[in-house]
């Protein structure tokens, strides 16, 4: 599914990714852990095509298609979704309007028919209920005045409605209390499927108790320095990142 080879990327003059290689097969959930400043968020922005994050070498493919040559919205239409660490507020645009416009833009790009309003609303109601969100919140301008936890739920709701094939969750656990973490994780787990993959970026093992990864990778100083099974996350939680930070 996702295939990254020797990826180098810079922001301004600083090289942040320095030869990152990673393979995430279809149906798997991979966790990326690492100290602050290791390049975790940069990786998510490089993959989704944020302006200002320049790839200087290497390749990134989704299902064999070169992602780097595509605009951010074209990547989204191919099924790439990023759950933001800090979701943006969009004044004056109701959440439902925003998501439906995005969904139909994606469908148009893929040559699919638009989703009808009643059908869309039905789905939105059902996912909102699963995420224990008040449906009226979806009629309000997207994320404006929402709490940190509400914004994260809104990210997962968007993810469910857009139904992407490859999902990147950037620090989805930050700002969530234990109950919200459980609800959000259940929402994410419900999206696990044989044809879908996920990259879960996190500082802490805690989230991985809820979203069980197939593989865990340690990102330090811009490259993957260790990979293993779920037990690697436990080891990191116990010993910290020192060993890897030095190795890098």
């Amino acid at each position, binding site marked *: 599914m996702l295939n990254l080879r020797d990826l180098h990327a810079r922001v301004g003059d600083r090289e942040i990714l320095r030869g990152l290689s990673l393979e995430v097969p279809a149906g798997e959930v991979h966790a990326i852990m690492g100290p602050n400043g290791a390049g975790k968020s940069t990786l998510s922005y490089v993959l*989704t*095509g*944020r*302006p200002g994050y320049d790839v200087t070498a290497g390749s990134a493919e989704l299902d064999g298609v070169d992602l780097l040559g595509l*605009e*951010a*919205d074209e*990547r*989204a*239409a191919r099924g790439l*979704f*990023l759950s*933001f660490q800090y*979701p*943006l*507020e*969009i*004044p*004056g*645009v*109701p959440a*439902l*309007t*925003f*998501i*439906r*416009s*995005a*969904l*139909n*833009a*994606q469908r148009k*790009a893929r040559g699919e028919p638009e989703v009808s*309003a009643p059908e869309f609303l039905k789905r939105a109601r059902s996912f909102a209920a699963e995420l224990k969100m008040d449906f009226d919140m979806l009629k309000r*301008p997207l994320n404006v005045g929402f709490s940190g936890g509400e914004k994260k739920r809104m990210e997962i709701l*968007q993810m469910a409605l*857009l139904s992407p094939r490859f999902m990147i969750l950037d620090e989805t656990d930050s700002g969530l209390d234990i109950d919200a973490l459980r609800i959000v994780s259940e929402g994410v787990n419900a999206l696990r499927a044989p044809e879908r993959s996920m990259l879960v970026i996190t500082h802490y093992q805690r989230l991985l108790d809820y979203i069980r990864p197939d593989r865990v990778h340690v990102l330090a100083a811009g490259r993957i320095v260790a990979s293993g099974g779920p037990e690697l996350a436990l080891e990191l939680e116990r010993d910290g990142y020192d060993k890897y930070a030095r190795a890098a």
Partner: protein
Amino acid sequence: MVAVKDTVDQVAGLEKYEHGFVTEIEQEFAPRGLSRETVAFISQKKDEPAWMLEWRLEAFERWSAMGSPDWARVSFPPIDYQDATYYAAPKAKDGPASLDEVDPEILKTYEKLGIPLREQEVLAGVTGAPRYAVDAVFDSVSVVTTFKKELAEAGVIFCSMSEAVREHPDLVRKYLGTVVPVSDNFFACLNSAVFSDGSFVYVPPGVRCPMELSTYFRINAAGSGQFERTLIIADRGSYVSYLEGCTAPMRDENQLHAAVVELVALEDAEIKYSTVQNWYPGDPETGKGGIYNFVTKRADCRGDRSRVSWTQVETGSAITWKYPSCVLRGRDSVGEFYSIAITNGRQQADTGTKMIHLGEGTRSRVISKGISAGRSSNTYRGLVSAHPKAKGARNFTQCDSLLIGKTCAAHTVPYIEARNGACTFEHEATTTRLSEDQLFYARQRGLPEEEAVQLLVNGFVRDVLQELPMEFAVEAQKLVAISLEGSVG
């Protein structure tokens, strides 16, 4: 939601200024230049009574002694007022009595602009077609006014200004120039001397006007200006909603549009006045051509508990200089101003409002959304004042500016004068740049750049769009999208 979607679909493939065509018809002009003779020519063309001509001539004398105002944040070379034509009209026999007598070329023009002039078609109604009366003004004359009969049954007078001067002289004499005095300002004074057609509306006491009224202004002739004059009177306890739209051909020369609009609301009356202004803005690269939109609009809330709301969507014109205002004279009267002003390319706008609180317990509300893109300049200029007698006056003003790109400018110039201690004025203002972060967020969700910008901008102007009559809100939203096309990237 549907409107947003609609916007997005419609925008693809549209020309930047889609109303820029010229209608080829035979027209009649006043001799070039401005003199007492020109004024007399216009008055005679309109078959006016002597008092009207005297009024015009007095205005002309006063105007001759005045200078062009220079306080606005706009710049343009001096205008040679002798090098313009002050009257242009389609050649017709005694003014068309019905639609069948109107030049088919003119009908075609309005059809192309999407303005419904054929009552029967409007009545037969494609489902959901808006049903509103239209006064169509082509250069200096009104070519047709629809639904007059149906409106007359309700007692509502809706006709061109020229007709009103002839048919309803008492009403015209009683109210004309009482809201905007002849010598109020340079452009209003010029208008008073040479005004051509605009609309006249009178709604009798207690009548709720049975449909939306609208005037569609079209400048067609080259080398001419348009000087429309509109007067709306809402008598005691009546209600009327009125909308005006404006377009012009693309020309390399600047054309002057100096209009005067006067609104009078008597006791318990309400007037809603909406404008969708889309005059040709000039060439976005060179700044060549475009309309100078120098307009004086004022409402007099003369009666107690009267209410006037101005809603404007200003997207066109090379230069916009207009301040639709409310004189809140009646006790507990209410004035509102909702504005979206968009400038792109080389456009300049200096626009805002004046809320003048004279009566006790008067209230006003100002919501202004300015959007600047390209190399344009956009200024909000607003006055809120309370006179010593206006105890308990309240105003809330919110001015938001949005910048797109790095070469445009936005300014906010509020003037606040409270001459008594018992009034409450609130002023909030923000200026933000269209955020790269928001744009990326929307694009990550799958929205292409232009659609993402439109969605964010629609969100920014939503409070004001909601104030427009439904069918026009959709139009306005499309216009917002079109006028910002190509402003990013």
